[in-house]
């Protein structure tokens, strides 16, 4: 793993440099907000998660040291944990386990200009771990190793989640399961 591109900025934040904080928000807020919006499907909740993620960054910056994961991977993990907290609260899970199976019944055909809402619905109907894998790799463009690290699974498990998620999306959005 090469040098972490965020390391210097994190060090300056740890020293209390206001300009570094501004720079960190400009650099990471769009990514964190996009991650939370796609995981939660709710812009207001996504903003709350983004704010809370930055609170964690300010709190831990002075003690952060590059270990196995890059800073970007670490903040993805923080944001994902906050998203899961909200998903559990929202659905009032009886257990801590989130469902592994997606509801992949085809969605109604979209009116012109309505495809975005339809894709959002399809993403929200995925099992959360499949949605997480697709959001990290497809939308956030994390490498397979970074995404697996953020999800704390092996690369093989990540690929399995990705493939199952994409098959479910294919069934919901295109009407086949991709096995043709």
């Amino acid at each position: 793993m090469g040098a972490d591109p965020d390391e210097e900025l994190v060090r300056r934040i740890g020293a209390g440099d206001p300009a570094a904080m501004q720079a960190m928000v400009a650099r990471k807020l769009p990514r964190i907000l996009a991650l939370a919006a796609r995981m939660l499907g709710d812009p207001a909740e996504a903003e709350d998660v983004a704010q809370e993620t930055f609170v964690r960054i300010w709190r831990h910056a002075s003690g952060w040291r590059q270990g196995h994961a890059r800073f970007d991977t670490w903040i993805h993990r923080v944001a994902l944990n906050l998203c899961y907290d909200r998903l559990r609260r929202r659905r009032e899970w009886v257990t801590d386990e989130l469902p592994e199976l997606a509801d992949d019944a085809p969605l109604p055909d979209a009116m012109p200009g309505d495809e975005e809402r339809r894709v959002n619905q399809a993403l929200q109907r995925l099992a959360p771990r499949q949605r997480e894998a697709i959001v990290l790799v497809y939308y956030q463009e994390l490498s397979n190793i970074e995404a697996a690290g953020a999800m704390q699974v092996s690369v093989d498990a990540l690929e399995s989640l990705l493939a199952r998620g994409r098959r479910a999306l294919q069934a919901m959005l295109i009407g086949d399961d991709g096995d043709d």
Partner: protein
Amino acid sequence: MDAGRFAALADAYGSALHRWPPAEQAAATLFAETEQGRAILARAGRLDVMLDRHRVETPSPALHRAIVARATTKVRQERRRRFWWLGFGLAGVGLAGAVAGLALVTVVSPDIQSDHYVMDTNATSFGDAGPDADQAEEDL
């Protein structure tokens, strides 16, 4: 790379090779030139076109400002906390010094009590001057 592995990667990562595992991109690029490779990518690409329609709003300036404001508050609180801890630390050092000094004085300075004979309240420097002393002399 064979067709099975190429299809498995397309199923997982989609049609854009830059999302595929870096270690397999070179071999995948070669396979993508084949007819089979093109067909697999075309099928994966149908879903990618749909997924690309999902866009999220860019952060509002208000959200950006709110996050920076919380950071500023956090830094102020942190500095205040450090200041107080510094004060407590200095006070602690002063107190520890005083205690150490006291302990040193107690250990080093002589024990005044041990060098003095403590006279009984009835005793004088000439002997016991208690009420029975005279009687004792008369009895002699």
